């Protein structure tokens, strides 16, 4: 069979499987926050269908379709992955599972982890059994992430970890944390950090949610007091954690930017959404319509850029520091989109749980997009130095 026939055979097989296994209730696109299945030991399924969908998808490796089969994935190549997403979108299927384990730790482990680590940590992520959070930022290490101070003292068979992390998303709901820990305080700041995996149930780990302007508390402070972390829970080499951190950040940035490019809207035009919410007369506000057109053009072009970079990386053409560019462009766009949605909503958008649901909360949440995972200004500085070669 030619490559194309193979892919089409896969499509037919997948279509049949989806028809049989994706519950009707899971075919609504599932865009709202409470439609997401995050998994983990604390997870409560919102419906039996959500549980069935996760279990069936995980059994086929479809929660992490591109991961190798032995680590819980389906081993799909790029063409098959495209088909997978097309077929999922065709029936408007919800993603069976989403998590930082899938988006961030998984890619880092696949790249830097030992075979044993992959076998141990990846399948529970793929099955939605273990939920991970990210311990990067600290009160004194925001944009200057490499200045983290949370320390790990060498105690022979383990590190003794003490310090504080902040903006740890969903730390209060997570089972494990991947964290940047200073294991050599005398080395230059980038060279004394290790990437450690820590069980949130260990004695000495404590979390405290932070109430945000959007009214919810997705972020936490996480405290470590004399936490013992066994030596085998390190990813990559000791004091080389910055390499892992940077690799993971590129995945995080691409993930955040994909959200911003409107790819999450199932390809629906912003203007169409605005027109719909404006009622029968359609989008008559000329200024809003013009802004929406500009936003739509940018969203389509950024979406194509994501595609182009994927195609380039598959073709072995280095895309350089593409993730910084995509993160910057995607998040700035997403903020604009939500500003327009608020403009379109008028006073209906000003009530918590008002006629437009959580539109205000969603709008406020987007303000973090250009801060988390590296601010827009940090992204521009990365482009300036690494791509344009401007003097530091």
């Amino acid at each position, binding site marked *: 069979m030619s490559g*194309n026939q193979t892919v089409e055979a896969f499509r037919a097989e997948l279509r049949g499987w989806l028809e049989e296994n994706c519950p009707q209730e899971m075919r609504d696109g599932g*865009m709202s926050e409470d439609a997401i299945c995050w998994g983990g030991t604390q997870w409560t399924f919102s419906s039996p269908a959500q549980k069935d969908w996760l279990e069936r998808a995980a059994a086929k490796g479809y929660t992490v379709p591109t991961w190798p089969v032995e680590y819980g994935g389906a081993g799909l190549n790029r063409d098959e992955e*495209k*088909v997978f*997403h*097309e077929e*999922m*979108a065709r029936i408007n299927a919800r*993603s069976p599972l*989403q998590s930082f384990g899938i*988006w961030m730790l998984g890619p880092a482990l696949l790249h830097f982890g030992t075979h044993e680590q992959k076998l141990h940590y990846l399948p529970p992520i793929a099955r939605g059994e273990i939920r991970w959070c990210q311990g990067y930022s600290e009160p004194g290490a925001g944009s200057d992430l490499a200045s983290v101070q949370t320390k790990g003292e060498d105690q022979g068979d383990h590190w003794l970890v003490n310090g504080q992390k902040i903006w740890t998303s969903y730390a209060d709901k997570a089972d494990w944390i991947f964290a940047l820990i200073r294991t050599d305080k005398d080395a230059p700041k980038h060279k004394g950090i290790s990437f450690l995996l820590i069980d949130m149930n260990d004695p000495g780990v404590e979390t405290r949610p932070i109430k945000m302007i959007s009214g919810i508390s997705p972020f936490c402070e996480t405290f470590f007091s004399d936490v013992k972390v066994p030596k085998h829970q390190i990813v990559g080499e000791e004091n080389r954690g910055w390499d892992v951190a940077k690799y993971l950040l590129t995945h995080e940035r691409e*993930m*955040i930017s*994909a*959200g911003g490019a409107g*790819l*999450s*809207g*199932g*390809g629906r*035009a912003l*203007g*169409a959404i*605005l*027109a719909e919410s404006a009622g029968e007369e359609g*989008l008559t506000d000329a200024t809003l*319509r013009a802004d929406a*057109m500009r936003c*739509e*053009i*940018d969203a*389509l*072009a*950024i*979406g*194509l*850029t994501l*595609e*182009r970079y994927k*195609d*380039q990386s*598959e*073709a072995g*053409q280095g895309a350089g520091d*593409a993730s910084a*560019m995509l993160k*910057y*462009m995607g998040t700035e766009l997403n903020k604009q989109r939500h500003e327009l949605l608020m403009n379109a909503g008028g006073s209906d958008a000003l009530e918590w749980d008002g006629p437009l649901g959580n539109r205000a909360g969603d709008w406020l949440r987007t303000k973090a997009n250009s801060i988390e995972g590296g601010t827009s200004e940090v*992204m*521009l*500085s990365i*482009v*300036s*130095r690494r*791509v*344009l*070669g*401007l*003097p*530091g």
Partner: protein
Amino acid sequence: MCRGVYWGFRGRDMAKLVMTEDETMLADSARGFLDSEAPVKALRDLRDAGKTHDAALWKKMADMGWAGVLVPESAGGSDMGSAAANVLAHEMGKTLVVSPFLSTAVIAATALRQVSDARAEAALAKIATGDVTYALAVDEGSKFDPNAVQMTAKADGNGFRLSGKKQFVVDGGLADRLLVLARTDNGLSLFDIPADRAGVTRDASNMIDDRDAARITFEDVEATGEDLLGTVDQAMDVLRPALQAGQAALAAEMSGLTAGAFGMTVGYLKERKQFGIEIGRFQALQHRAAHLWCEIEVTASAILHAGRMLDHDPENAALAVSLAKARATATAQLAVQEGVQMHGGIGMTDAFDMGFYMKRARVGAEWLGDYSYHAEQVAALRGF
């Protein structure tokens, strides 16, 4: 947050959004030729000599196969497709190359290929050898709008009589032939007539980009059925693909001029010293340059995609083409404005090349539909 839903913008059998080896080789060889034959200085020299066309240069380009890039092999062309034409246009844009490439090799060739008769085949053969140049006469007001055409082509015996006025006919001052859009009894029709036919008066426009364009008056100009390109009242069957190919190639040319202006600007940031250090050390300028690079990268995707759509799925290329032209227009205008500002006073002088880039960007922005025109196309195609 990523909701994990991928959205397939492209058809699944589409070629990938990566420059092929052939395209990279074409770009490299074009660059080599243009750097020696048509640097920006060539435009300056032409301007200083009061000329808007370099016939010898166009002949050399034709000899290299560029004039026939969209001409079928049966008519002596190389038939490389829109993506390849865009690669050439991009390279020409980098050094603001003066040539009738877009009007003749892209727009006229695409229009003629929609018609399968011996006359069109002969015309295509002459395009490929560089022996005929064309200009497209559509605009009648200050904005591009083919549907607003008022010029008439009244039925007269077996033929027509054309009367009306056109403006911003790019390459129209010197072209051998004109493609003219006119209103017939029940729609629009496209005519292919020699520019020197009785009743045609050409008034060369003194354009800011120093290129050829004209205002043209048609007074009772005779056209036969032979001069009709395609079917009467059905101009868009022929014109739409020609416009789309032209708009995509113009977008590519504008991305080339953007790259040229941006390269000069980044180079200047690394050299120019003020307050004792290179101005590229100032974060205010670094971030503006970095932002511009991001916009350039995003626009490049839209242009590559438009070429792929025109070559692989032309029936559905309208959205991709308007997206490319809109993005290319906005990015080019940003690039030249930032270019002048970051160069400071020297960027304002005629002796420095940045001004040529700014003026060409302005003309390119208007030609074949400005940002607003293409934004409206996108809005219509995206359901609002």
